[in-house]
């Protein structure tokens, strides 16, 4: 038999939540009992913080393994998926010097026709930098299997359904809200809101995944090229206020028919403008210490 010559073992260590009682269920019950707060003792603390707490990875792993089970037999039997639970293999954990879980190792064939071209037969560690999802895992493991793992993300029916109902609902309500959509001021508002949010660094926080506020409770991130999520809303608000007070001076004030009321408004909006602008400049100086 061919596969007996070239044995590829894919060893997957830890987790497996198949204990007598599902720990997750246990935790849910405990949380319920304590009005949402779990009272810990030494046993439940171990339960909560054990290396098994990677709740979300096992389904991904199993999905990839199942996908592999569908490939033709000649290829399927050249590559194996395996798991090792900490409870069953403590010595192996010690041997590999593992402190945390989950860990995925790929053991390439050491002999036979399936030895990698590079000649490296030492085990390779999978890098979880792409998250714990099944897609990237299958993609990266496919580099080591004889044929690519035929994994496909399950179709997210709920999402399609939501989109479809959303579109339908929009079409239905379109008749009623068409005066709003056709108003130029709706569009003006949307346009200005988009511009303000974009110039407040919204895309920065999206792309970098910045937290809303910092760990120390400070909402202004240190550093010129850095920012937190809350800065977007504050800065966009400041910009919006400045824009509005400016527009008041240009678009509302001149149409006042009473001189006294007009004068009051001019002083009011100019005052708002100057004060808010000063706040903005001082905020900028916090971010950029050398500012003029």
């Amino acid at each position, binding site marked *: 038999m061919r596969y007996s010559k070239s044995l590829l073992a894919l060893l997957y260590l830890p987790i497996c939540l198949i204990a007598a009682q599902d720990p997750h269920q246990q935790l849910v019950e405990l949380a319920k009992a304590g009005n949402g707060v779990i009272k810990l003792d030494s046993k439940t603390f171990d339960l909560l913080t054990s290396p098994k707490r990677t709740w979300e990875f096992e389904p991904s792993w199993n999905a990839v393994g199942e996908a592999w089970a569908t490939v033709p037999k000649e290829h399927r039997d050249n590559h194996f998926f395996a798991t090792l639970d900490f409870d069953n293999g403590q010595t192996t954990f010690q041997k590999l010097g593992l*402190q945390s879980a989950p860990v995925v190792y790929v053991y390439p064939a050491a002999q036979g026709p399936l030895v990698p071209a*590079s000649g*490296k037969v030492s085990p*390779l*560690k999978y*890098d979880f*930098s792409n998250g714990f999802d099944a897609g990237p895992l299958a993609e990266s493991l496919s*580099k080591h299997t004889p044929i690519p793992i035929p994994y496909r993300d399950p179709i997210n029916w709920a999402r399609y359904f939501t989109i479809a109902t959303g579109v339908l609902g929009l079409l239905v309500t379109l008749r009623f809200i068409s005066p709003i959509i056709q108003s*130029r*001021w709706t*569009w*003006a508002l949307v*346009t*200005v809101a*988009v*511009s*303000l949010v*974009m*110039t*407040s*660094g*919204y*895309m*920065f926080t999206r*792309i970098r995944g910045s937290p809303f506020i910092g760990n120390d409770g400070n909402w202004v991130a240190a550093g*010129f*090229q*850095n*920012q937190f999520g809350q800065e*977007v809303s504050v*800065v966009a608000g*400041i*910009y*919006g206020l400045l*824009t509005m007070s*400016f527009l008041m*001076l*240009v*678009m509302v*004030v*001149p*149409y006042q*028919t*009473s*001189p*006294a*009321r*007009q*004068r009051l408004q*001019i*002083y009011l909006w*100019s005052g708002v*403008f100057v004060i808010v*602008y000063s706040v*903005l400049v001082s905020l*900028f100086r916090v971010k*950029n210490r*050398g*500012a*003029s």
Partner: protein
Amino acid sequence: MPTAYPLPTNLSPATVANTASLIRIVALALISGAAIASRLFAVINFESIIHEFDPWFNYRATRVLASKGFYEFWNWFDPTAWYPLGRVVGGTLYPGLMATSGVIYNLLHAINLPVDIRNICVLLAPGFSALTAWATYMFTKEMKDASAGLLAAAFIGIVPGYISRSVAGSYDNEAIAIFLLMITFYCWIKALKQGSALFGTVAAVFYFYMVAAWGGYAFITNMIPLHALVLILMGRFSSRLYVAYSSWYAIGTLASMQVPFVGFQPVKTSEHMAALGVFGLLQIVAFAQLVRSHVSSHQFQKLLATGVISIGILGAMAFVLLTYKGWIAPWTGRFYSLWDTGYAKKYIPIIASVSEHQPTAWPSFFMDLQFLVFLFPAGVILCFRELRDEHLFVIIYAVVASYFAGVMVRLMLTLTPVVCVASAVALSTLLDTFVDPTEPEVVDDTRSESGASTISAPGTNGAAPSPTTPATTSKKAKKAAAAAAEHPTTLSDILASSSTKTAKPKGIYGLDTRIMVVLNTICMLAFFVSHCTWVTSSAYSSPSVVLASSNPDGSQHIIDDFREAYYWLRQNTPEDAVVMSWWDYGYQIAGMADRPTLVDNNTWNNTHIATVGKAMSSSEEVAYPILRKHDVSYILVIFGGLIGYSGDDINKFLWMVRIAQGVWPDEVQEPSFFTPQGEYKVDDNASPAMRNSLMYKMSYYRFVDLFGGAQAMDRVRQQQVPKVGPTLDYLDEAFTSENWIVRIYEVKKEDSLGRDLKSANAFAQGKKRKRSKPTTRRRAIL
């Protein structure tokens, strides 16, 4: 007609018009002067030198063009770049910039002005910024009026968002591209307004120039169709739009295909499909309009509408099919990464690694645009108030560009012009309102509301007449306006005719509010100017080839390590010695040291770059065969640990690892360069892969010796370097610059006795070879 302040009465309208036009010309001249002057900080603080990285290639290419002529330049094959592959330069660059400098050079020499080509290259960007100011003036004039145009020109002349890419010495494509962008947009607006095929053609010619000059031409390629599409959707289709768009598209596309680097892309790639699709849509809509004007039957019109819609849907489906079948190339990675922001990091690490492709945080926006950043939404709102066809252009441009600028720092450059235009419209409206001397007559609606204001109103405005009923007021005003429009005799008549156009009475009462608002505006503008000056002089004028620091007494200290090292290479190495470095320094080595390089800033070959990354991140034993196979004689690394220069290779090292991992995932793995705690360290805790890597060894080789037994400190990463420094067996230190920023190593040749270099080195140092285990094991012969 009451006025807030007295006006001269004896001026003829011709005098007013002439004076205004003279002031405009003088103002534009001064703005041009300011735009050029503010970009000369770099020359004054440092010297007339080409900046950064890409400009060094542009400069090198321009020198070829100037010395050997256009034909040679066009067919130039550069064997020293991407050694050993070489680069077909003529077909892989945007020649607009070099051609522009070449034309200027030849022109100046034709009139016997022997200007050096370097000075033309250095001063090209400031010169074109003056032209940009003029183009922005023309563009804004179409949006509002000449006074807004002047403000816009002044803004774009000094705003840091544009200065950052156009200081003297920043000889890059953007230097001329922003002028071309604005002039193309101006011609498009003009063509659209007049329905002029002439202006459409002029727009197409400038579009061609833009295509020849900058890859960002795709912005125009998509902006104009988007504008046309929105006009059609809003039911604003007109024959003017048809003429303008068709003439621009037909001529512009044919012309752009003449650039070899672009070739058939305009009909084959997704970036250009929007323009083609809108062109087709316009034909259908125009045809439908034509037929409708000739038939009257209601049913037939319905049939026609159905026909047009189905043709449109069929056309759209044809596009989808063509894309699916692969006849139309899908979006290229660079453009696609603008929409799917996670794409580049995952699939094209080279693009993600470039610092100007990072997203923009808000302080950058405020630094680059200052008070324009919150003034331009006001301008956009004012555009919505009038909403002529050309105002829609500004609105679309504002939304699209602010999104792009948020995704990539570099695209701040495309946002800046529209910000200047919109803010100028806003600010000039404010000034119009508050400088306009006419006061509205107090309308008598206050009588019913409160008696107090009726009494106070005439008191505060001495000039205001006694209240009259609104009906008679407006009638009187209309009469006066009609009379004035027929025979405008004085300045106040001109003002009166302009101010009574609106139905509602509008204006500002009194003088104090006017003075307050105008003073406030002047203060804001003065603050803007001082901010721009500060940003330009402190942040955007550094050539980055020459670094500046200050001595303890405050005087400037110039750090010139780069040129020192490149000059050493030029003087001390054979002309065909291949130098390996990370791709950032490829253009500089080619431009200043004139030596072949493996990779450079034209990052077209990912595998070649990954090869360099692999050599840098592997151990000496693994890297040596790679180096020898690529004929590498010298390796150049940038090290900032001694003086705290943060842009050094150790900080870029993870990108080298990532790019190498993309091609050789089995041999280079990013996690192995981190400590078990997941930190990026260079001290005692550094991971074995890190400490054995060629990059680490070359950076810290003999670094400890500098400190004479004291603890060696890396001043960039603020970490203590191990007491025992790395040793090198396959490389020799050849040169280290004054501040250790540039370190050059020579790759040793194979040992003449056939030993591997490690044991040869050990032998030379008098170490005994260990005999504890047999060195070779006999293999069983199968």
